[in-house]
């Protein structure tokens, strides 16, 4: 048994500086791969990016898949959080 099945876990993806469209591609890939854990609320996807376009495209894609998505500005980059209960955990 891995730890992610026991405690909610942050899946971190640091995409800063990477070529377009790596951010969206990798995010979609991760959304698919972690679908079950994300759906159960056991995991939250946390993407760091400096790609301005990705802050629109990734949340749109995630929301269309039924997740909650938030964008937060941190220092010089943006952090996109995706999950089932992300809003509750923030507020």
């Amino acid at each position, binding site marked *: 048994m891995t730890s992610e099945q026991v405690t909610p876990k942050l899946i971190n993806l640091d995409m800063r*500086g990477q*070529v377009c*469209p790596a951010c*969206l591609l990798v995010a979609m890939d991760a959304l698919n791969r972690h679908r079950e854990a994300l759906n159960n609320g056991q995991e939250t996807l946390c993407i760091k990016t*400096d790609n*301005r376009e990705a802050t629109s*495209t990734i949340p749109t*894609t995630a929301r269309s898949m039924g997740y909650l998505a938030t964008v937060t500005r941190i220092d010089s*980059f943006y952090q996109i959080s995706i999950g089932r209960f992300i809003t509750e955990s923030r507020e």
Partner: protein
Amino acid sequence: MITNSTFLICLAGSIIGLLAGFLMHRSDYCVAGMFRDAFLFRKTFMLRSLALQVVTTLVFFEIFRALGLLPLYPFPTLGFASAATIIGGFIFGIGMVMAGGCVVGTLYKMGAGSVVSAMAFIGLIVGSALYAEVHPWWASFMKATTFFQPAKTLPGLFEINPAFILLPTTCVAILIFIKWQRENKFVRQSEVKGYIQPWKTAVTLALLSLLAYALIGMPLGITTTYAKIAAMIETLLIPEHIGTVSFFQLTPLNIIHPSSGALLQGGPGPHIDSTWAIQFPLIAGIVLGSTLSAVLLGEFSIQYRIPPVQLCMALSGGILLGVASRMSQGCNVWHLMGGLPILALQSLVFILGLLPGTWIGSKIVSHIILKQTMRSTDDR
């Protein structure tokens, strides 16, 4: 209008460049991305703004032409359509997706601190230098495969007034735009700081293109200067070689501007000439305009921790862009934002090659990125 003063040409170029770079950064106005995302993700939001830009430019150019304010029509250095242009467009399409930006996108992304785009920029210069070596061979191929000669534009081919084609096209386009506008398809919610809706950037870029055409005599173009920078570097490193490269002796720009009487002369050779005066300030302006935007937003940052495979991909993409923009005598900005609005045949066939190229480029890039992600996830 301002062509008898090199200072004013440079000033106009810098201002246009600064504005363009600033806006492109704010809206993330990436032409390569527009086509790529349409193919990869079926996301066409940005492509709508590009359509708006092309049609707005078309209307501006046509009004100014009808008023007699564009004495150079079609503009100088526009070539004939040929099979070479299609092939060039195809390679350009692959290159711009691999580089993560076209020749202009690379500049504004580099301006905001992107190391990947800096690699693509180096590739662009290397690619231009490589093309110079094969130019005689390619030029004869181009000549042999030219079609529609002597027509350079679609109206010219049918020998009709451009308005006969442009007017109905514009009417249809406006109807489509009104539909999009009603469906709220031109704006989107964005949570980034200082976001400028892409349609505003599109209209401004059309205005800037008109400004360049009316003031200098040509729409926006920058790629000859990439070749020029390559020639300048070669002059420093291998000065005995440069004299043997026929491409660097060319002066494709060689006109007397009808309204000012000024002689505009220039080409890819390593000299400070009219081509340099028109294009270099524009290049520098786009980079600095984007830097300014990023710094003002507090978003300027240079990230070095990038998968090496992406750096290689951007460098290769840049090389393809450099080679292809010379093979087809102009880049996507020149053809989409300058040639297409006057229905230049060369630009139309360039796009014919560009679309399948972008599609293949998108496939290559998504394959490389996902493979690399898979490998790095396995490592963990």
